[in-house]
């Protein structure tokens, strides 16, 4: 039987503290234990939902997060324990979310537009005396730059990995990241 598995990823967050119990639950879930799978869901839904919310939007996040866990259930047989379950699930989520975005047909167009849009991103604030919330500032970034910023600075992927995921040149990933950071700096500190 041919099996696929997610490629190696570097995560910023240490998932090892949960990895032992996750590995046991993943094994049980792979054999059909829905209760074990629910424990995995409870342990990871915050991270997965936050990822979906940031990379898509509030309206799509619930459905996307559900899709991630349903797909994880279907593919548990390919989880071999070589990486932490959280790492495996996270990569699965990234792939699904990017696929979802691609189906919307916005991905490549937004990257092409990013340069122009970034220069005109307004640094509006919710109140004159209040610094903008980081989540709101990220949400205001142009779509393509936002993905790269989230994948690199929030999720801990390397430019080479991001370039492969998004079908971009590494240099494009680097330049978009810099522009995203500069735009955020401007928004957060003006």
């Amino acid at each position: 039987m041919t099996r696929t598995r997610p490629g190696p990823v570097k995560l910023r967050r240490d998932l090892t503290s949960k990895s032992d119990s996750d590995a046991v639950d993943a094994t049980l879930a792979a054999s059909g234990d829905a209760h074990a799978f629910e424990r995995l869901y409870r342990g990871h839904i915050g991270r997965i939902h936050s990822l979906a919310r940031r990379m898509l939007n509030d309206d799509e996040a619930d459905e996307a997060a559900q899709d991630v866990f349903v797909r994880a259930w279907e593919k548990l047989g390919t989880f071999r324990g070589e990486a932490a379950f959280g790492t495996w699930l996270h990569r699965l989520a990234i792939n699904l979310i990017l696929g979802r975005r691609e189906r919307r047909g916005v991905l490549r167009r937004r990257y092409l537009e990013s340069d122009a849009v970034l220069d005109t991103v307004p640094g509006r604030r919710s109140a004159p005396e209040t610094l903008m919330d980081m989540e709101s500032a990220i949400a205001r970034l142009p779509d393509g730059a936002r993905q790269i910023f989230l994948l690199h600075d929030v999720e801990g992927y390397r430019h080479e990995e991001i370039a492969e995921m998004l079908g971009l040149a590494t240099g494009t990933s680097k330049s978009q990241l810099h522009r995203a950071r500069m735009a955020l700096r401007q928004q957060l500190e003006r």
Partner: protein
Amino acid sequence: MSDQWTERLSEYLDGDLTESERAALEAHLASCAACAETLAGLRRVLVRARSLEDRPPVRDLWSGIATRIGAGSRQRRFTFSMPQLLAAGIALALLSAGGAWLLHPGSNQVATEAAPLPLARAPIATVAAGAGVRGYDAAVEDLERVLAEGRGRLDTTTVRVLEQNLALIDRAIAQAQRAVAADSANVYLNSHLAETMRRKIDLLRQAAALVSAVS
């Protein structure tokens, strides 16, 4: 304000510059207040990015997921062929003899599954610390023997994963046993120990069934 170095500040932060580029940029930063200020701002962005808190959805999504995966109405399906299913059935019938160890009269019970693997939540009796595990140990030994004899028929990755998972469970059992030894009256700890031991039996039984299925 922008100069040739401004565009390189993120690469500098990420350690992507060569040694000579880094040295040149640092020399520039010492004399360019604007770039130094920009760099400080970029650092603050990074710090805030790394301190973002995850938060769960407003509404619990589990019920929708449970419905979609069929949890509660059916258990997971293996995609074995009919001959494999027959072989697995025979294996499970044989393994139920191993399960009988768990029900051995006169010993404390550990688990009550006797046959075909209801892997989701079989009832578990609590187990007292250090007592009444003879039947469990014998069942484990029996199943481990089946696995040892058949491991050559499994691919090496499967064997490795099985061994890793068994090691994890053994570690969890040892931890739970130590906890129960320290607080033997604790119902939760006893229940946790029993649950962990049941997981080992479950995993071993699946592994043994897999051995038979691939024979």
